[in-house]
């Protein structure tokens, strides 16, 4: 029997500066839990404020670490704080803050469990922040569960609403199944390499032809994450969950949770399995084509704005899968592919959160999710209409808004790769962008040109928190449109070192 008893214990090196964002966030979420227990029912707003201040406080160490600029590695390479990690930590914390702003009025008016809501949102964010630094199968798994389990509960937050129940159940069952399948893949990869650290896995696997064990392991892991990022054919939970869950939670799931899935995929594919591109490249090719096409075609037929945004976010995930399908041929291709995904994720977060913030604002008055209820929005809410137009055109990828720039990078990665398969994929993505234009423009046409339903022109009151969320996202989308170079620089900086 081999001996499994370790040699004398040596305390691992803990870089507390590098861990500061996580430590602050953990402290804040525990404080939120305790404060909520001892605060009277009518002063619960304090809890949400504490959570918001705490989120901004944990953003501070991220900024300091970025200024400092050193790469810090712990636990023999399992936990790394580099530019990639910092960019995504910042993205998750900021989008978490925006979601918190969006939730303030929604949760208060619904008489929900306010303290627990903030606590679970922060827990999920902690999982995402950990995910950005995870460079190890076990850490990725724990981070994924930490971000998913609170999200299951948040999806079912309206306890008496059957739709919310259904949203939670579907999300939960498919989420748990996908992480079980992913774990089975991880166990096979661990068996083939004898290590869980991605760097060592890459070294063990090398660029050799894949063993069946490794190929199967990678296949299961990619399928598991395909569920998380709602790629077709593993997307069917997404529209139902998005429609049934409370709106701020839907925004959170479609942006932050999806981004976390892509972060994990970037780490696994470009750090761990890069040499095995003959396994994952075809897989991502099929996933990307199906996801873009099905997402866009089904979105064409939607009459409910939330379901439209749900299918549009499925299609957007398809665009983000394109660089994965072309990034395996060389180190340069991998670099371009990573930049494309990172830039797309940053821009997508801003424009999608913005679109959901508008939907929430309008739904406060119309109490309806139908696209027809947006008829003539311009005549009584011109500001909101202009913002929504910017967001949907940005999602459609029309210049000069941020989304155009994101799409440009996707195409660039495919064209730079230059293979026949990559060019074919670029053509599919191009056709899909044109299809997408129809339904995005349909929303704009409804707002600008259609008559007001019921001729009810009372102006829409925008609560301050929701207004702040709208402001942040709008400024982000505009800034990206005007200064795209700054964002490209960010995407270049944040590339993971391939092998």
């Amino acid at each position, binding site marked *: 029997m081999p001996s499994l008893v370790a040699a*004398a214990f040596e305390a691992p090196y803990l870089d507390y500066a590098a861990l500061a964002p996580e430590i602050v966030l953990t402290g804040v979420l525990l404080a939120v839990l*305790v404060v909520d227990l001892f605060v009277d029912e009518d002063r619960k707003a304090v809890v949400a404020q504490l959570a918001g201040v705490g989120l901004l406080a944990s953003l501070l160490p991220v900024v300091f670490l970025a200024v400092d600029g050193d790469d810090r590695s712990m636990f023999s390479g399992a936990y790394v704080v580099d530019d990639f990690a910092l960019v995504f930590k910042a993205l998750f914390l900021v989008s978490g803050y925006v979601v918190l702003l969006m939730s303030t009025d929604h949760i208060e008016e619904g008489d929900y469990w306010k303290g627990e809501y903030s606590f679970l949102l922060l827990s999920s964010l902690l999982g995402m922040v950990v995910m950005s630094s995870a460079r190890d199968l076990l850490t990725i798994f724990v981070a994924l569960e930490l971000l998913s389990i609170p999200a299951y509960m948040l999806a079912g937050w309206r306890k008496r609403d059957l739709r919310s129940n259904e949203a939670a159940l579907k999300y939960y069952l498919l989420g748990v199944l996908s992480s079980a399948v992913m774990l089975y893949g991880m166990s096979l990869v661990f068996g083939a390499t004898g290590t869980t650290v991605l760097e060592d896995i890459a070294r063990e696997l090398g660029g050799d032809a894949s063993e069946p064990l490794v190929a199967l392991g990678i296949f299961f892991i990619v399928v598991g994450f395909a569920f998380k990022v709602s790629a077709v054919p593993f997307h069917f939970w997404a529209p139902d969950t998005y429609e049934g869950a409370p709106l701020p939670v839907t925004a959170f799931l479609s942006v932050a949770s999806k981004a976390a899935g892509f972060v994990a995929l970037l780490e696994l594919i470009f750090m761990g399995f890069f040499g095995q591109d003959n396994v994952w490249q075809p897989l991502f090719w099929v996933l990307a084509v199906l996801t873009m096409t099905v997402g866009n075609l089904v979105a064409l037929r939607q009459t409910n704005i939330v379901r439209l945004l749900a299918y549009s976010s499925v299609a957007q995930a398809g665009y983000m899968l394109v660089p994965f399908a072309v990034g395996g041929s060389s180190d340069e291709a991998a670099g371009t592919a990573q930049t494309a995904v990172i830039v797309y994720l940053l821009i997508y977060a801003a424009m999608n959160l913005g679109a959901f913030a508008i939907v929430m604002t309008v739904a406060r008055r119309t109490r309806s999710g139908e696209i027809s209820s947006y008829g003539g929005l311009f005549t009584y809410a011109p500001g909101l209409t202009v913002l929504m137009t910017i967001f949907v055109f940005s999602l459609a990828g029309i210049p000069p808004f941020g989304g155009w720039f994101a799409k440009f990078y996707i195409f660039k990665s495919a064209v730079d790769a230059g293979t026949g398969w990559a060019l074919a994929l670029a053509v599919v993505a191009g056709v899909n962008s044109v299809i997408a234009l129809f339904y995005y423009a349909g929303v704009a046409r409804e707002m600008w040109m259609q008559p007001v339903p019921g001729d009810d022109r009372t102006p829409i009151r925008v609560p301050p928190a929701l207004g702040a969320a709208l402001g942040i996202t709008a400024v982000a989308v505009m800034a990206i449109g005007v200064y795209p170079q700054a964002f490209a620089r960010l995407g270049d900086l944040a590339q993971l070192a391939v092998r």
Partner: protein
Amino acid sequence: MKALTTLIAMSGFLREYLTVLVFGAAAVAMVGAMLGAGSLLRPKRAQLQKYISYESGVDPVGTGWSQSQIRYYLFGLLFVMFEVETVFIFPWAVRLEDLGLFGLVEMVVFIAILALGLLYAWRKGVLRWM
């Protein structure tokens, strides 16, 4: 050659299981002998009450399938959560001296966070039987 060594290794593996098999057979034989002897020796007087399943002296009510109180679920859940967390405490406990102060501090942090969970359950009235 490889197949042969595998076979030998297999037989070693199976031999270990033979012990288990013999042990199991002995156990079955012993219990069977005792129960058999008992049924031969004891007097048989059939009464209806003797066929009712034993439930600590109380007459059983209803069928075998009955729904348990929803409150048991909360206790069960709480129990499972805290019990499962001990899988992280056991490895620390068996190597307590090796891990030293570092291990102690980490474990105190871990247990403190768990204790907050218990505090939450207590404040929410989960621990009180209503």
